[in-house]
């Protein structure tokens, strides 16, 4: 039973992959860039799900998959054009199929009405295509194929009367479609040969002369004599996937079984016998008779076609193994310890006063290099492309366009960009919300768009890219942009800002991130359910990321998220502040400098600024801000780190000295303590002591809060 559960789990995991393929293929078809290979891939995906589902008696899934497959088959045989309407139905069917798989996995009930409606819709498509029937499509276009019953292995029967060896005469005449769908007779025969005493004969009677031969045709037939203890159902099951594409006859001959399988009947004495052992080779080894050579070529031909068909799959996914995530995480933790340990060792060696040229130092350098490589390797195990995440979003856009009556297309870019699995997982909710916002609030209704001189179809773009050690994910729309006047009014109405407060456009846009803010006129069930952009912002921040808005009236908005590639390590600058060691994330640092006396200016009572590339950046004394010392240090003679925050404001942080620049392992402060404002996390340094990692954005935001009067706003945003 346990094994069964495991196999079932594997099936569902594979289903997910198939569903991904399906969606990619359908999207390509919708874009009109699909070749026959894509269509085949789509078909195969549904077919595999159907096949697997049959084995697990998931009847509902099988039934729907079959209807779906039937319609896809019509597309494949060019009987059904891939018009936008058809493709919409197909995509919706794919969504439903995904839901059915999910429901079957968790044994949840499904919305029968929805299934029936979708089946009816697919059937209607098939009916419309039937007007141009084709002989080549025997049964494929048959909408009545709904009563498809998977042939199941009847386990109960096995336990019944003692299994008695029976002799079966099996005739198999494959149709060309069998090969076209990627099946292979040699495999079927090999499986048969495993069931018992086995004899096979190849019937080459129907093989035409070479000049009349269709290389993709199927001319060979096989006659098999099988003596086995397995029952007939087991044999039928073997042919389950090809039954539609071949003629199969299974005759039981119990009496003959007793006599043994001697003297094959008077079948085609001229045909060469192929020994079961030789079946392992794909080409039939045959006597040097010209016609046999052709037979071999014919047999090899579908094989080749099959290999080609399988090629895109092979290139898309190299061999993989499934590993328990927990094992990977344990490994990552261990490597983290290794990194710390290696750093401690380096420090000890340094303290021992060994010369840099000593062999110990050299060995240690090599160890450091190796440690880093191991760490990168282990991190790469957790990295995954954002593609599945993006695919989920395309479904959301689809559902939203149906619900809102807007016409929106989702364009994705950089799907292969890889990022830590946890980041992907925790990005799903905020991203869903942002996509919903883009469709619901961003893109206008078709008539409004046309009035504004824009195409009726709106576009939401989702892109991912690596940028200087971080992943940047952007959600942009070509809608109306943020209605700043309204945002301002709402913020005033809700008491979030003072009526007379002056804000820049950027600041108004950032009001969207305030808790409880929602600009939706009416609360729709799409966006506006009390969870707003503040939740999005908080989720992104919790991942060590930041989010920014750029919006142009009439042209649309861009929400840009910058996230760390991994949540386990960080490149940082180790600095000393008032006897404490701190780590500043390298990504935030723009430059470091030692200010001269003339560059520091006092501004007001206790604020100071520094000349910075033609402008002035406020000086923040890190030690004073964190409460490590009461008086700010003199910036002249100290080291200044110029940092840039999420809202692109520059600040100059005053520290005492820079010690080092290194990769540090991130350790949670929240696990045993709680979140500390201005501090992102902790790490353990080479001397075994804990050092805090500065969170530039909240740190600077806090400083601003104490320095300006906009307390309620910034308290909420930060």
């Amino acid at each position: 039973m346990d094994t069964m559960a495991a196999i079932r789990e594997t099936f569902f995991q594979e289903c997910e992959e198939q569903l991904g393929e399906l969606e990619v293929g359908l999207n390509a078809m919708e874009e009109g860039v699909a070749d026959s290979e894509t269509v085949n891939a789509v078909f195969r995906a549904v077919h595999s799900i159907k096949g697997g589902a049959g084995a697990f008696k998931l009847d509902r899934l099988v039934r729907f998959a079959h209807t779906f497959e039937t319609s896809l088959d019509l597309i494949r045989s060019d009987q059904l054009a891939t018009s936008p309407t058809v493709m919409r139905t197909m995509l919706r069917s794919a969504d439903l199929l995904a839901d059915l798989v999910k429901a079957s996995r968790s044994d949840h009930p499904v919305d029968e009405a929805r299934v029936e409606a979708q089946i009816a819709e697919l059937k209607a498509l098939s009916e419309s295509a039937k007007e141009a029937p084709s002989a080549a499509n025997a049964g494929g276009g048959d909408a009545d194929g709904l009563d498809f019953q998977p042939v199941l292995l009847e386990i109960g029967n096995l336990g019944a009367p003692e299994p008695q060896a029976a002799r079966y005469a099996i005739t198999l005449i494959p149709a060309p479609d069998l090969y076209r769908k990627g099946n292979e007779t040699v495999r079927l025969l090999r499986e048969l040969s495993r069931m018992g005493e086995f004899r096979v004969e190849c019937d080459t009677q129907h093989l035409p002369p070479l000049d009349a031969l269709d290389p993709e045709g199927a001319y060979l037939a096989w006659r098999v004599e099988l003596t086995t203890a397995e029952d007939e159902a087991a044999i039928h099951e073997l042919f389950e996937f090809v039954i539609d594409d071949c003629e199969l006859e299974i005759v039981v001959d119990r009496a003959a079984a007793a006599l043994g399988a001697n003297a094959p009947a008077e079948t085609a004495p001229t045909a060469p016998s192929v020994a079961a052992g030789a079946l392992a080779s794909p080409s039939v080894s045959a006597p040097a008779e010209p016609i046999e050579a052709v037979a071999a070529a014919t047999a090899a031909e579908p094989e080749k076609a099959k290999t080609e068909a399988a090629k895109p799959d092979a290139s898309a996914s190299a061999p993989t193994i499934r590993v328990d995530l927990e094992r990977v995480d344990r490994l990552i933790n261990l490597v983290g310890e290794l990194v710390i340990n290696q750093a401690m060792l380096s420090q000890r060696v340094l303290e021992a006063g060994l010369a840099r040229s000593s062999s110990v130092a050299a060995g240690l350098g090599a160890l450091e290099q190796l440690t880093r490589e191991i760490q990168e390797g282990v991190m790469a195990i957790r990295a995954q492309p954002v593609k599945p995440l993006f695919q989920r979003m395309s479904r959301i856009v689809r559902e939203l366009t149906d619900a809102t009556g807007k016409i929106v297309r989702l364009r994705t870019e950089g799907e292969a960009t890889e990022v830590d699995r946890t980041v992907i997982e925790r990005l799903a909710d905020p991203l869903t919300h942002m996509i919903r916002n883009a469709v619901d609030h961003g893109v206008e209704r078709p008539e409004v768009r046309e009035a504004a001189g824009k195409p009726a179809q709106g576009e939401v773009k989702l892109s991912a890219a690596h940028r200087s050690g971080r992943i940047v994910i952007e959600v942009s729309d070509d809608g109306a942009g943020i209605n700043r006047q309204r945002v301002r009014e709402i913020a005033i109405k809700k008491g979030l800002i003072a009526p007379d407060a002056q804000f820049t456009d950027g600041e108004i846009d950032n009001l969207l991130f305030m808790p409880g803010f929602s600009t939706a006129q009416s609360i729709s069930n799409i966006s506006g359910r009390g969870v707003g952009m503040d939740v999005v912002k908080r989720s992104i921040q919790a991942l060590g990321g930041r989010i920014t808005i750029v919006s142009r009236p009439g042209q649309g908005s861009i929400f840009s998220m910058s996230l760390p590639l991994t949540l386990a390590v960080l490149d940082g600058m180790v600095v000393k502040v008032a006897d404490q060691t701190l780590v500043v994330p390298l990504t935030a640092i723009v430059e470091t400098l030692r200010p001269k006396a003339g560059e520091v200016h006092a501004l007001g009572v206790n604020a100071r600024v520094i000349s910075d590339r033609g402008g002035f950046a406020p000086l923040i004394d890190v030690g004073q801000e964190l409460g490590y010392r009461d008086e700010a240090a003199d910036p002249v003679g100290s080291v200044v780190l110029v940092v840039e925050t999420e809202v692109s404001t520059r600040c100059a942080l005053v520290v005492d000295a820079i010690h080092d620049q290194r990769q540090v392992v991130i350790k949670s402060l929240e696990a045993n303590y709680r979140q500390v404002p201005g501090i992102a996390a902790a790490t353990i340094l080479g001397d075994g002591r804990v050092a805090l990692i500065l969170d530039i954005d909240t740190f600077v935001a806090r400083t601003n809060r104490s320095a300006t009067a906009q307390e309620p706003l910034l308290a909420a945003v930060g």
Partner: protein
Amino acid sequence: MKEVNVAAAEPREFIAFRIGVQEFCIDIMSVREIRGWTPATALPHAPAYVRGVINLRGSVLPIVDLAERLGFPQTDASARQVIIVVQVGAQIIGLLVDAVSDILTLTTENIQPTPDVASDFVKSFVRGILAIDGRMIGVIELDGVMTTESEAAA
């Protein structure tokens, strides 16, 4: 006031320790280990009783100065002090005390209710009083030792 949750019939073990001249104890089941003092990294914006964080075999452990928490003067931490590593809920924290003095086995009957004294600190953490051999030992309930966020912000 909540009584220490000890089944009457079952004796349980407590670890007793000293803060200044007074003695307190905690349930041994919540104690993970006892270790010597190591310098802690100060945490900004932390209550005064949080002395900072130390590295406990790769995890970051906050240290609570129990003396300060109970309203005594701050412990002058040195190599003589010890850290009792305890589990409170899902978190593990270190309690800085002057010395571990004893392991006590007792039942609920041994614990007397805390006398009505003025100190809020005592009221919030001391769940009962033990009288053993003329010594008076306060039983500390750990739940409130690390405060909630709101209290820290106040």
